[in-house]
């Protein structure tokens, strides 16, 4: 048997020192430490449910071995905000109706955070590209995209900002997205065309 390795994980600001076999993934280590907001979906880097920020960069934690994250700063969805004090992105997900079963949500929020950190005012195409590594099998992509747009606007204009006006209504406007990101046109243009079936 290989020797266990001492690994220091700094998760959501708290330091953990653990002894782990070399084959333990960051995903497994985080969940064993109680960070069950990091979801175990596919374990092959396809679904993004296990996404976390590793030194500020969004990664699939199933594709990182825990020792590769030794000493690194890890932020999970729960590290961004809590039920009492949610992050603007999390609140926007709730307000836009972007949470259905909720399994993809922590990973979606992490990908949204990584996007908005780099690009505070992304286009719809940029949002679709940024969340393309996160699968929502409820297929609620329309609301998720609107949640990111709402969060972007609130982060730039303050908490009172909304998506009303020239935008489509936050909920229910788009429900036929399947997994084809980067459709041309704004949500409004597509709504006028009568949906997303191409």
């Amino acid at each position, binding site marked *: 048997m290989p020797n266990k390795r001492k690994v220091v994980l700094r998760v959501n600001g708290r330091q953990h020192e653990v002894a782990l076999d070399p084959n333990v993934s960051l995903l497994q280590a985080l969940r064993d430490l109680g960070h069950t907001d990091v979801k175990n979906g596919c374990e*092959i880097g396809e679904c993004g449910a296990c996404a976390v920020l590793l030194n500020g960069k969004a990664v699939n934690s199933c594709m990182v071995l825990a020792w590769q994250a030794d000493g690194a700063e890890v932020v999970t969805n729960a590290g961004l905000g809590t039920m009492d004090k949610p992050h603007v992105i999390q609140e926007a997900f709730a307000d836009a109706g972007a949470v259905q079963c909720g399994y993809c949500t922590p990973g979606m929020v992490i990908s949204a955070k990584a996007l908005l950190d780099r690009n505070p005012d992304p286009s719809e195409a940029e949002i679709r590209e940024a969340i393309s590594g996160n699968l929502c099998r409820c297929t609620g992509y329309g609301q998720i995209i609107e949640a990111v747009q709402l969060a972007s606007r609130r982060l730039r204009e303050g908490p009172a900002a909304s998506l009303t006006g020239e935008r489509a209504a936050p909920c229910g406007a788009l429900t036929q997205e399947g997994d084809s990101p980067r459709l041309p046109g704004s949500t409004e243009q597509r709504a006028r065309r009568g949906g997303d079936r191409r």
Partner: protein
Amino acid sequence: MSLPQFEVLQPATLGEALKILSEVKGAEPIAGGTNLIVDMRAGTHRPKVVVDVAALRDLHGIEVTGPEVVIGAATTIAEMLESPILMKHAPVLVLACSSFANALIRNRATVGGNLVTAAPCSDTAPALLTLDAEVKLASVRGTRRVPLDRYLVSAFSTVRRSDELLVSVRFPVPSATAAAAFRKMGLRKVSCMAKVDVAVMLDADAAGRCTSARIAIAAASPIAVRARAAEAALIGKPITPEAIAAAASLTAKAAAPRAGSEYKLSVVQGLARRLLAEAARALARGGTNA
């Protein structure tokens, strides 16, 4: 589901890493791990010892060294995507990187890993082939530089020996007037594996005669390849629609898709025609690249 057990060695220097690769039987390098971890989980790959090369300084950085652009093997796809040097000198590679998997994977996957894995659908390989790239392989026996098209042998097979580490990939700084284009076709618009990749790079003299043509394809043959006959057909002649159509048809002849995937021949031909026309238009505008 857990991974099989293995040992980890974390050398502090390139020299130490090469020593381990030469002395420890079955030791394999790991950088981002986006291929290795998946293969280990699936049980298709079972190294007893993995050698962590991600932090080795010699494997990092993107720089122009004299006449060459040099990219450290452990450079992530995301880092390449954000590199002003590559944006200026090799937009074809930046385009390939932008089509690579998705943001989560791009933050871990490395160019060296992509070339060591040598999957038929590698996105970096066709772009690097049009840049006339070489890889630098190092071992305790010394280093050697191998042109990428000789390095890539077949699906998941390269000339790298088990004691060698891919240290960097490098290519001559392309002509400032060259124009390039890249297109990936997959089952989705983003976050997918390539069904066909085509990359092209053209250059012409003041009279509009083609002085350099490089065309590469991936996922349409066991490994990414240059379409040399198509290139030869273009060089020295004006880049007319007829010349482009003939070169596109020769590009399809360089493809060798698996049985059942013959449709890729038409895709290669169509993409090659479109991309060559795009590059020719960019050349006519006097603009560079993509």
